[in-house]
């Protein structure tokens, strides 16, 4: 598979995007269902997926919309949850070839997800804009199509199935955070600490006034800051989030 110039070819990008797209369809299906269950239209669900293309941010955003949160809350929450994309974007700029003009960068950045970043950055050598177009096409299409299917089928499928599908996104999150946690003690501590704080904020009555969005922000900032202080990453590790 790893032929020369593979990082330049649209076709190779498409191929690399297939497994990501398959994963996205099933996960965004769950998001579509959650939206409709929350009382939003299928069109709203599709618009959110088309304009955001991010699981964690959309799920948190949906929670804030359901709770009729403030504009400031949704902006701060999305900022913190999606902050990782800034690091990924910075990291990937080091691998772009000269075909990445400024307008092309502005276009491709739209599809900077955890999985697309992971695949693009694991390619040997430089990557070209055509490769990135191929890589982003199927996952973005799958993300939007899965949302539409979930939102539409959510009303047709029996509740026993749609209820079960509500867990899909969370399952994917576990698949992202647990494998690295088994390899790095620092990541494991970070994951456990964030989860513990999250339980405290959600269970202790004293904190019940804190909304779900800010709760995630507070937990993530405290856990990340603590681990960064105790276990700062080495130079090479910094871009591999």
């Amino acid at each position: 598979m790893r032929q020369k110039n593979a990082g330049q070819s649209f076709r190779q990008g498409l191929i690399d995007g297939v497994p990501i797209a398959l994963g996205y369809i099933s996960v965004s299906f769950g998001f579509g269902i959650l939206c409709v269950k929350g009382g939003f239209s299928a069109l709203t669900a599709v618009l959110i997926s088309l304009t955001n293309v991010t699981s964690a941010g959309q799920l948190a955003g949906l929670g804030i919309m359901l709770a009729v949160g403030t504009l400031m809350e949704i902006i701060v929450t999305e900022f913190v949850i999606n902050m990782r994309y800034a690091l990924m974007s910075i990291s990937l700029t080091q691998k772009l070839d000269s075909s990445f003009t400024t307008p092309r960068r502005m276009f491709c950045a739209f599809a900077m997800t955890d999985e697309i970043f992971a695949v693009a950055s694991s390619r040997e050598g430089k990557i070209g804009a055509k490769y990135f177009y191929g890589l982003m096409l199927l996952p973005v299409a799958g993300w939007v199509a899965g949302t539409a299917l979930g939102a539409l089928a959510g009303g047709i499928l029996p509740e026993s199935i749609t209820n079960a599908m509500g867990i899909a996104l969370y399952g994917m999150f576990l698949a992202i955070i647990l494998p690295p946690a088994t390899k790095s003690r620092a990541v494991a501590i970070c994951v456990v600490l964030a989860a513990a704080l999250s339980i405290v904020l959600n269970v202790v009555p004293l904190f019940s006034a804190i909304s779900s969005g800010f709760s995630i922000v507070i937990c993530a900032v405290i856990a990340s800051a603590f681990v960064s202080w105790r276990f700062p990453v080495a130079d090479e590790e910094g871009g591999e989030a």
Partner: protein
Amino acid sequence: MPVWVYILAMALVTYLIRMLPFTLFRKKIKSRFIRSFLYYVPYAVLSAMTIPGIFSSTGNTITAAVGFVVAAVLALFKRSLLTVAVAACAAAYIAGLFVG
């Protein structure tokens, strides 16, 4: 506040965070703390979102707990995102046949 305002705000913030560094950034972040912080943030965010949220994701704590255990075990065995997500749904569904 209308729904489209929420969507627009989410979309704008999400896009700008991705686009501005991708388009403008050419140098490396010098602060080791900030680099570390950015490295750990995704794990912390996803963890805080999953716990305890996952336990109310299926409308029944028991079916969700079964889905959680299955997902966690498969994730620890490094199964793909797709496998883990689908298996969690299947486990929650099957558990629902018994407790639902």
